[in-house]
């Protein structure tokens, strides 16, 4: 158990979710183990394992700028925080806020939702299968709050509702943002790749670099490469910076169902390969691309609220097309919108979700384009904010 706890502490730190040693992780089987057994907070959280049917719990104050953002949203929200990004819409639904760390405050919330944001303290998340659940939920809460914060403040700036409090918090958060990503990261392997081992190495190398560059957290994306009529694609629930052994070979002729554990975006990847002829596909959820994809200037739109499903307008940001589309294969699945939008273009942003970039040789240009799109969106965001 000790090893498992350490693994997830390291993952949280590596993803920039925590930056001090105060995170507390609990994992229960017949007995309950804590990452810091001597921490007095263990006594506070142990009853959650008795009252809830859970086996894993994380309590931590997130790293900056997440913490300032989350605490601001918790302080100003009436009821649960309701981000509009894809992660929240699909998996979290909403983000309830607790007034304090008592079990009386936490249990009613955690009975209904996977996480609780506790004002002035941090985030509590839990799992019923493993620590991976509260880890992914923790990461998703940070991402969703970041996106909501910047989306809301851009909206306020544009509509003239930016008061001094908001202006101050905006300035203090932006001062803590990480520096823009270097435009020329270390080169990735050169393709095209024909040997399976080279394909797998290239995918692993690219996934790690995307996370190392802090473009996305490790659970926010997927990667594929097509060689010899086989699509090699990262598995569902895999981590971009730890893909070795977690890549599925999916024959394009449909002769095997081994792709059953492939990324939930397999259909989109297959359609992109089929419709564009490219080989390498990179998908991630960089934050400013997601934020700007949800910034729409159409007033009184009758489709408002369904933008993620079906937007009738041709939208773009910095000449990058924005399309609607939900995760997976449903009637509004992004597999129906993204491939078409990628014709003659190296990248596309999916509303409230993330970016797809492609190339017909290897991952170098796809990665550069992903960086470029996020950089352009970040610059464009601040331009729009200042313009008001």
């Amino acid at each position, binding site marked *: *158990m000790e090893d498992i706890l350490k693994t997830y502490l390291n993952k949280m730190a590596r993803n920039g979710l925590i930056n001090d040693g105060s995170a507390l992780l609990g994992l*229960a*089987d017949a007995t309950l183990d804590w990452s810091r057994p001597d921490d007095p907070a263990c006594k506070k959280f142990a009853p959650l394992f008795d009252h809830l049917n859970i086996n894993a719990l994380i309590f931590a104050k997130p790293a900056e700028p997440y913490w300032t953002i989350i605490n601001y949203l918790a302080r100003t929200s009436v009821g649960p925080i309701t981000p509009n990004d894809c992660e929240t819409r699909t998996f979290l639904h909403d983000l309830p806020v607790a007034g304090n760390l008592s079990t009386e405050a936490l249990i009613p919330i955690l009975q209904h939702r996977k996480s609780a944001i506790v004002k002035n303290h941090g985030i509590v998340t839990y799992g*019923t299968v493993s620590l991976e*659940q509260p880890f992914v939920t923790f990461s998703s809460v940070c991402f969703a709050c970041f996106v909501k914060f910047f989306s809301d403040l851009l909206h306020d700036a544009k509509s003239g509702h930016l008061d001094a409090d908001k202006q101050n918090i905006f300035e203090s958060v932006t001062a803590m943002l990480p520096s823009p990503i270097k435009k020329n990261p270390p080169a990735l392997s050169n393709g095209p790749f024909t040997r399976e081992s080279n394909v797998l190495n290239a995918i692993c190398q690219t996934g790690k670099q995307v996370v190392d560059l802090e473009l996305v957290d490790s659970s926010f994306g997927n990667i594929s490469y097509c060689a010899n009529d086989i699509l090699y694609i990262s598995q569902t*629930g895999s981590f971009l910076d730890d893909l070795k052994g977690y890549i599925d070979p999916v024959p394009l002729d449909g*002769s095997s169902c081994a792709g*059953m554990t492939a990324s939930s975006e397999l259909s989109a990847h297959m359609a992109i390969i089929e419709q564009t002829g490219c080989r390498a596909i990179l998908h991630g959820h960089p934050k400013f691309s997601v934020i700007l994809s949800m910034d729409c200037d159409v007033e009184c739109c009758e489709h408002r609220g369904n933008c993620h499903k079906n937007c009738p307008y041709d939208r773009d940001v910095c000449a990058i097309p924005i399309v609607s589309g939900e*995760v997976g294969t449903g009637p509004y*699945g992004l597999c129906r919108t993204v491939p078409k939008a990628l014709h003659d273009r190296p990248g596309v942003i999916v509303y409230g979700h993330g970016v797809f970039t492609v190339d017909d040789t290897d991952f170098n240009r796809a990665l550069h384009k992903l960086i470029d799109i996020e950089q352009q969106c970040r610059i464009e965001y601040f331009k729009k904010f200042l313009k008001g």
Partner: protein
Amino acid sequence: MFGWHGKILRIDLNRKSFQIDTPAPELFHKFIGGRGLAGHFLKDCITLSYDDPKMPVLFFTGPLVNTPSPTSGRMTIMSKSPLTGTIGDSSVGGSFGTMLKKAGLDGIIITGCSDHLCGIEIFDDKINIVSARELAGQTVSGLNRILKDKGATAVIGPAAENNVRFSSIVIDDHYAAGRMGLGLNLASKNIKYITVKGSGKTLVADPAGLKTAGEDIFRLVSASPALMGDYGISKFGTGALYDLMDARHMMPTHNFRKTRFDHASLMNAPAFHQRYAPTNTGCRGCHIRCKKIAEDGRPLPEFESMSHFSALIGNQDMDTVMTANHFCNDYGVDTITAAATIACYFELTGKHPATENVIALLSDIVFQRGIGEQLGKGSAQFAENFGFPQSSMSVKRLELPAYDPRGAYGMAMAYSVSSRGGCHLRAYPVSHEILRKPVPTDRFTFAGKARIIKLQEDVNAVADSLTACKFIFFAATLEEYAKVYSAVTSLNISGQELMKIGERICYQERIMNAQNGFTAKDDDLPPRFFKESKNSDDEKAPKPINRKDFLKARDAYYVVRGLNENGMPTREKAEELGLLAS
């Protein structure tokens, strides 16, 4: 009441009488419906023999059935298993559960024994017990042709009439309550069939809330590769698992003596689809539609049948798999136990599909001819009679399905502690150990697995009681289903509170098994899984399970489940779960 009708039909075949019970709403709230409520009505009779006239056969639906709730068209059939002596239940699809609700009923309890073969016909509030003497020996499909205007059907085939211990009840011609031998429970009461047709509605407290809650679930389902992906079960049926199991060295081959099947790539779900060009169908109220019917009307085998009638028995002919599956369905036999018993017979006699006609063997079992008379009692009895009980690959005398536990230790744990024996569905750890949902777990460790298995057993007990399809829990969780449940019933309840009910349901089953003498010694796997395989010629084949680690994990499960060190329920835990007073 919203969701429930509050009505349970009691049929006494001794007196040919009917009665409608209207239990207090609190009973429905306490056990939900389906498996939970059926278990409540079974518990007082559980020490009787399966064929005692007082032993009930129970058909129960849940509050979500006959509402727009996702995947809610299922029901539970329950009695004491003639094969295992444990609680015997099966969650089954088709339209029977929905029709039962349309007829204004939450469940049926059948006791007594007819003095001649009979049928029970329900049409709204009209109930008739009719003679079925002339239908003796009818196959499932033959009977369904005769009953085609009578609504949903639950029928037995010749196997049950001939006392086969693993005979099934088949719903609507294609949906088998296969496991546990429940067909024999009906046969012991001289019931050949039950039909039900209704025209009523089930009241929903908050239709708008149900719509929103349903949309949340549909969104998650769309995002699930295992359910709706290009290679998921919506497209290929449960047979989609075939390639994964082989690739992960988990395909039970030659009666679990090997873990990969050389011909797997030629007999997988895409191969079946190419040859038989099936169309999609599914249970009432389900949009996943995992049932596949071939052009000639035969159902494509489910994953377990596909795997066991190929790899487990060493058969390389796809059409034999199709024919065996169809034969079992039409004559009313559980495909898993049938194939596993034949695999055991092959191992003990040195025979194989090239020397023995599999369909002829199945026919001998159904009609109790020759060796079929012995095989019809299941592999455990057959292997014991042969003097090699360890060759029966079963737990609590229920044959194991198509997941080798050496490749997934959660599955090893789940098999051993399941209240109905060698069953994959009670905790279904394949979800996280193989399909990586809701998140992946390390399949080669017992660390943390005791609690995971206990929690997933509780979740699935709720699913079987709502009654919803367990497959949808690859994508959704009780967090989302609690919203559905609340919208339907008006009860404001959380997913965590539903899990507490699931815990109660599981513990009730554990109590029933304890009353029939089941202890820790029965919570065990066949010895083969703990020993080095002599026949493994594959370096990648999973290693034997470390018995010490297994026993330690089982002890941990007992602690988490609130059992004593011998796996027996305790008065304190039963009281905590409200199981003493009820």
